[in-house]
């Protein structure tokens, strides 16, 4: 029997059934209306660098620029058009289809309450220039982007992993990275704390949170039929009944027993 081939370049979950004639509709990309504020934004970017595409999608302007022009475009928008807050910066992985990442910069003009998104395409193994001198918020966002997506950033003051541990391998948000982690990820804490030789003792991760092994006396004790920790499996079925009670029947040494008659129930707020 042969194992069916599964593509490794995109391990994202797929729909198990798609109609043969299904064509996904698209959100309309409207042209930027003449004379609007957004048109002036586009003009300001055009003056500074080349604009590949500009459209309005769901009420927000999207401007595509070349990846080497990202700082120029943001600088024009910040200084001429008042986009003084970088509210989000990240990347989208298109390695499998187009061999690169789409980096987006989500900007906000606080005075006019206007938002736009500057996007650029970065090929794999290419780097974007840091926008940290323009916006301090890019500091952490770019570190996170490097950490999770593996998009390199040039001239960043402190480009180091932010979210994952320093000794982590791989960039988890890439489409090639499985959701449950590779082997390194799955054994990370065991290797680090107990060493690789303890892998056999601790065993692989249980990825099914619903699974309970009643003969696993190390971790589970059947309520009402308790066995000592680590007892052999055959003892489980022969376990004597151990009654469980809310409080011990005979009472506890020096502790008053709760009785329902002597307690008061507060049923509403004073």
């Amino acid at each position, binding site marked *: 029997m042969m194992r069916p081939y599964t593509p490794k370049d995109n391990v994202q979950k797929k729909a198990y059934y798609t109609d043969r004639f299904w064509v996904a509709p698209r959100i309309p990309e409207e042209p930027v209306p003449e004379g609007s504020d957004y048109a002036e934004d586009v003009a300001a970017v055009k003056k500074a660098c080349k604009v590949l595409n500009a459209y309005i999608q769901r009420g927000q302007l999207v401007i595509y620029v070349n990846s080497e022009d990202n700082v120029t475009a943001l600088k024009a928008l910040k200084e001429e058009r008042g986009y003084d807050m970088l509210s989000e910066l990240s990347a989208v992985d298109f390695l499998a289809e187009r061999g690169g990442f789409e980096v987006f910069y989500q900007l906000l003009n606080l005075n006019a309450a206007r938002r736009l998104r500057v996007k650029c395409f970065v090929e794999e193994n290419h780097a974007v220039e840091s926008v940290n001198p323009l916006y301090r918020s890019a500091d952490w966002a770019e570190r996170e982007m490097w950490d999770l997506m593996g998009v390199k950033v040039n001239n960043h003051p402190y480009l180091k992993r932010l979210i994952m541990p320093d000794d982590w391998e791989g960039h988890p948000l890439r489409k090639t990275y499985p959701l449950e982690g590779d082997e390194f990820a799955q054994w990370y*804490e065991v290797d680090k704390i107990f060493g690789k030789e303890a892998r056999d003792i601790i065993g692989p991760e249980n990825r099914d949170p619903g699974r309970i092994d009643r003969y696993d006396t190390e971790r589970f004790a059947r309520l009402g039929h308790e066995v000592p920790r680590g007892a052999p499996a055959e003892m489980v079925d022969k376990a004597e009944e151990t009654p469980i009670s809310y409080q011990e029947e005979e009472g506890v040494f020096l502790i008053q027993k709760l009785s329902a008659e002597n307690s008061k129930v507060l049923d509403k707020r004073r």
Partner: protein
Amino acid sequence: MAQHQVNYTQSGGLPVALTTVDKILNWGRSNSLWALTYGLACCAIEMMASGASRYDFDRFGTIFRASPRQADLMIVAGTLTKKHAEFIRRLYDQMTEPKWVISMGSCANTGGMFNTYATVQGVDRVIPVDLYLPGCAPRPETLQYAVMLLQQKIRRESANKSQKPKRLV
């Protein structure tokens, strides 16, 4: 030499209680379970709520301590991630014997809904656990009941029995 003026057989009885060492030790241990505040995520909020005014954990003799050296109960409340796993082990090692661990919430029990690369699939991969407390997040009443169950468990134990080597290395 002063004479005893109190007639113990009549007024309130003798100031003597007969018990076993086991019982008195376990009584002390079970009714002053000082918990290490190991709040990691959402469950920590419920842990705080159970310590606060409505649920009032102090009634059980459980007060939260910030230092592992003063605590004998570790309530692991929340998701343990791979990056954090090292530190939970360090703090567990710093607690003095006897020590108990309550794993509070699904994330701590099994990784819960976070079946991902970054989450430890159950704290029992790193430290031994005495009580698993289900729920996401468990209500404060559940945590109180867990502490009561743990108290019962402690009372059943022999006070000076040698600690069994636990499963982890």
